[in-house]
């Protein structure tokens, strides 16, 4: 087990035509940490996630996962190395059942499971995310929240070491939010490292050890959650004006820019 | 001397390819429909010019101007009658792309069938301005020169039409941003139909121009469709300037290969160029992401 950071992002850059979505982004994530990747809409957070997971190729810079350079690798190889993710707009396999959706996660990873072993593990996983007894339901018929849970179960089936959650806690009512936060804490306690792209500040406070804040593609702050969220630059980025409110955005629910 | 041949030959062919492809790129860029029947309609226009020239003694130049409104009307009708139901059924996403490719593929066979039924599979040509003209020491067929001049002229007119008129701007707005064009009062469906019409005018013109100097047969439709598609993709779909440059490039490469390598390998040259461009610059020479 290496002692270095699980993930290291170095000067990562991605431009779409004239728009630089991610501009020389650098940060590290240590084992077992939950890092918040924050910023107003359009700041480049999702693009950064896409670059890390291999969904998009970067223009320059490096992404190093467990000491291994993964930028430029095909997404499926990165997934097999132990990086799993959820998507901002939930992507479940609608033509398949919930059980099959999770079995898919088990089928293609190294040391993959199939048949009865996969089925048993999948059922267990569905129970863990709160979808017990829905195994044979078509994924296309799930509610939005349940679909998110299914997506997480699928990601977990990959037995990842790094989990990228893209606004996974968005749109939840207070009870569901607490359940979701508890689930992520469990995952971290089981050894997972998590990068959380979030707007829900309650969750950020509860979960994140450290935060990285982006605005217009650039990292504008990094550090412990409390300190970052009271940083005046961060406040300005979210609220768009020179607000000298002492609380900053700390302690408030969701400042959606 | 040979260099001038190649230059003129390249310009003529290039200009023609550019003109042909312009119509297709307008159709694809605005209506988001890849019209595989494009080449076949072009050949049909060539046949039309042939009939008018041989049966009625009409000069192809006159046919050229007649072809513009006829071509416009025909393709506009094709869009309204045949393609609109598909648009309504699938919306404007990738399903439309597939369905429309298939439908226009079928349409190309329909038009091919009409051409074959009427004219058979032979090569046709008629004599028009078939005397050599001396340009910088090399002899060029007058009909090729005329075709080239018209190709460039029409390209310029279309460019101005699309960039300087309100109609043209509306059409381009849809190409750039079909979702937001209605917000500024542009009717996307009407613009798509008009774009198809513009494409129709251009392909009719190209067909007439080609008939002036190139022997053609019904089965040549596929070849022209292919070349137009290659130019459109190389130039970046919907990108007018890209289309022009790519058309000229294709024309020159083809002429060079025909003169210095082997005239029987032109299609191979087209495809090699196509593959090279796609592999090196996947979004076309001037980039603009194709969905």
């Amino acid at each position, binding site marked *: 087990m290496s002692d270095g950071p699980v993930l290291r992002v170095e000067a990562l850059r991605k431009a779409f035509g004239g728009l630089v979505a991610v501009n020389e982004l650098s940060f590290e994530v240590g084992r077992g940490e939950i890092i918040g990747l924050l910023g107003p809409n359009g700041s480049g957070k999702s693009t950064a996630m896409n670059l890390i997971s291999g969904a998009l190729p970067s223009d320059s810079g490096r992404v190093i996962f467990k000491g291994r350079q993964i930028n430029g690798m095909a997404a499926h190889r990165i997934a097999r190395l132990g990086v799993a993710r959820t998507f901002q707009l939930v992507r479940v*396999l609608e033509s398949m059942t919930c059980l099959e959706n999770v079995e898919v996660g088990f089928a293609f990873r190294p040391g993959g499971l199939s048949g009865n072993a996969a089925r048993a593990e999948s059922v267990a996983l569905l129970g863990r995310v709160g979808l017990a007894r829905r195994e044979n339901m078509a994924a296309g018929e799930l509610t939005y929240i349940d679909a998110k849970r299914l997506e997480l179960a699928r990601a977990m089936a990959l037995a990842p070491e790094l989990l990228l959650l893209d606004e996974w806690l968005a749109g939840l009512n207070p009870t569901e939010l607490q359940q979701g936060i508890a689930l992520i804490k469990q995952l971290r306690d089981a050894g997972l490292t998590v990068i959380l792209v979030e707007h829900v500040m309650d969750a950020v406070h509860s979960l994140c050890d450290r935060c990285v804040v982006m605005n217009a593609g650039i990292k504008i702050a990094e550090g412990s959650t409390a300190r970052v969220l009271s940083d005046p630059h961060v406040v300005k980025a979210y609220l768009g004006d020179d607000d000298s409110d002492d609380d900053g955005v700390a302690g408030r629910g969701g400042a959606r820019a | 001397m040979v260099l001038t041949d190649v230059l003129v030959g390249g310009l003529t062919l290039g200009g023609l390819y550019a003109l042909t492809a312009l119509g297709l790129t307008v159709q694809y860029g605005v209506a988001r429909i890849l019209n595989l029947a494009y080449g076949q309609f072009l050949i049909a226009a060539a046949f039309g010019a042939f009939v008018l020239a041989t049966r009625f003694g009409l000069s192809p130049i006159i046919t050229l101007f007649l072809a513009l409104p006829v071509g416009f009307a025909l393709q506009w009708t094709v869009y309204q009658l045949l393609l609109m139901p598909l648009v309504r059924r699938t919306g404007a996403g990738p399903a439309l792309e597939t369905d429309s490719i298939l439908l226009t593929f079928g349409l190309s066979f329909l038009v091919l069938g009409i051409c074959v039924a009427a004219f058979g599979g032979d090569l046709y040509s008629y004599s028009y301005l078939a005397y050599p003209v001396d340009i910088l020491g090399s002899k060029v067929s007058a009909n090729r020169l005329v075709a080239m001049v018209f190709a460039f002229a029409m390209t310029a007119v279309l460019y101005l039409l699309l960039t300087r008129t309100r109609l043209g701007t509306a059409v381009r707005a849809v190409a750039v941003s079909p979702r937001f064009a209605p917000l500024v009062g542009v009717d996307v469906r009407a613009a798509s139909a008009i774009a198809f019409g513009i494409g129709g005018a251009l392909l009719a013109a190209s067909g007439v121009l080609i008939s002036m100097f190139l022997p053609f047969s019904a089965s040549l439709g596929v070849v022209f469709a292919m070349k137009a598609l290659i130019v459109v*993709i190389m130039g970046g779909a919907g990108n007018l300037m890209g289309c022009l440059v790519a058309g000229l490039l294709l024309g020159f490469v083809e002429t060079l290969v025909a003169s210095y390598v082997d005239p029987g390998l032109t*299609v191979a040259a087209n495809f090699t160029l196509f593959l090279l461009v796609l592999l090196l610059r996947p979004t076309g020479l001037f980039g603009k992401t194709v969905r």
Partner: protein
Amino acid sequence: MSRLTVVLAGLGACSALAIATAAPLLQGGDYWLSLGVTLLQYGVLATAWAMFSGPTRYVSLATAAFFGIGAYTVAVLGESMPWAGVLLVALGIGVAIALLVGLSTLRLSGVYFVIFSFGLAELVKQIVTWYEVNVTRDVGRHVFIDISQRQIYWQLLALLVSVLGVWVLMRRSRLGLALRVIGDDEVVATHVGIDTSRIKLMLFVLSAAVMTLTGAVLAPRWTYIDPEIAFNPQISFQVLIMALLGGTTRLFGPLAGAVPLVLLFEVLSVNFPNYFLILLGVTFMAIIYFVPNGIAGLLQRVMRHRRSV
């Protein structure tokens, strides 16, 4: 599917196969044998087409290219090599070209692939013609191979059974699961560790290999083959319609589309030879309009309707 259904289906398939195999031995039907060969030809081609274009949703217009490669290889080598050898060479060439095309175009978006496949037959035709004109100086070959229609029939039948068998095995395997995922959401597929590029390539090569073999097996039916005949784009078109009509998701879908259309085309080409292409085009357009998901898709919808009622 219940045990009984599986057993019944199996018995049904076996009897159908037995009948199909024995049919050519019956007397008095050269015409029927010929029709049988045509049915098998398009059945195999349509199934092979659907094997790739179904799961990947890439519309391939390249059937004529690979069919032609098979047919023309036989025309060139048929008399100088034993039959098995010729088939192997044809297969090799088809696979090599499929690999080349696949590696260069499958990584690009679907639209580029369609365009490339559209022109592929034309490209191969031109290269072959050029080669024949300049190198061998012998464009168009006479085919004098001693293979009877019956033998062609049985070879095609074997090919069809093999293709269907491969399809069934594939579906049940991990590859089949991967295909279902790709068909549902390709982005998800890549993020659960599925190498979509390699799978697409594999399917494409497999499909092309079958088409090449079909062309090769059928070549002795002609007495004269030239590049125009071998690489006729019409076959790409017909195979496409058949697979779409029958539906590309079910095992017997393409076959179900091939049979009625082969019969229809027979009738049309005999009675309206001058307007055949027009009718072909119209038929196709009608299918796109009215049966967008194929007959299999229609059946599925009917079944689902019944179940929910």
